[in-house]
């Protein structure tokens, strides 16, 4: 079970009215390498992963939902006061027709989220390597969004999220070391 804390993991400040950024950010909301995909992937894989690393997948999967919430806040702030014309100019006309101003799990190109984006192989090494790759892909998505955005406040929050991808990747790499270790072997230092 989960406890909910009614605050964001890191503050989200959007300093410019630029709905186009919402279109880019939605990639991290409902894209193949986005936060939803990450959360679902880890929280699902944790059942069949070796017991030393179940807790890691649980913790990181939970944190991904906190990131999802930050992205949702950014997108909401960028679109809530936009006119339909502004949304159209930002490339969100089709989104507006289908979903109004509500958020939707889709990528920057408007394709709906599908679980076919994520894998659960049941092989610990295959799963953890996929998780490392997922973190690196999410890290690069943040980099490309930062390159496209000149909103300092937003880029600060995105920098925080990118750093979390680095820490997660590091932890998954350590998880691989943990599960491949031969625990029956005596080590002399």
């Amino acid at each position, binding site marked *: 079970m989960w406890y909910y804390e009614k605050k964001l993991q*890191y503050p989200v400040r959007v300093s410019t009215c630029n709905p186009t950024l919402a279109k880019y950010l939605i990639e991290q909301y409902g894209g193949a390498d986005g936060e939803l995909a990450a959360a679902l992937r880890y929280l699902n894989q944790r059942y069949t992963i070796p017991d030393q690393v179940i807790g890691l997948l649980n913790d990181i999967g939970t944190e991904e939902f906190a990131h999802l919430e930050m992205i949702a806040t950014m997108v909401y702030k960028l679109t809530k006061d936009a006119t339909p014309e502004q949304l159209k100019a930002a490339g969100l006309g089709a989104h507006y027709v289908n979903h109004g101003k509500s958020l939707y799990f889709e990528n920057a190109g408007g394709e709906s989220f599908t679980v076919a984006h994520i894998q659960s192989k049941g092989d610990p090494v295959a799963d953890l390597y996929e998780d490392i790759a997922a973190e690196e892909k999410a*890290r*690069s998505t*943040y*980099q490309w969004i*930062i*390159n496209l955005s000149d909103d300092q406040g937003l880029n600060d929050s995105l*920098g*925080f*999220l*990118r*750093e*979390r991808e*680095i*820490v997660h*990747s*590091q932890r998954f*790499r*350590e998880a691989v*070391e943990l599960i491949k270790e031969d625990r029956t072997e005596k080590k002399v230092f």
Partner: protein
Amino acid sequence: MPTYRKWFYPFISPFDPCPPLTPVSYETPVQLYLGFQPAGMEQFSPVQALAHGTLWPGLYTPYTNPYLEKRREV
């Protein structure tokens, strides 16, 4: 200390349609080099940790837009 950004010069053809935008950069953050995190690494204060996105200075690898430093060679 490894560097966290690398650069390379791709082949430039005299028939390229656009002026070259080189060198090309890519990120090589700290997790590629650290291995298993050693015990007793230095820590940020809680407030600093929140601002940096990590408790560990040794894991902090910030990002800046590399295009800001680039000049197109015309």
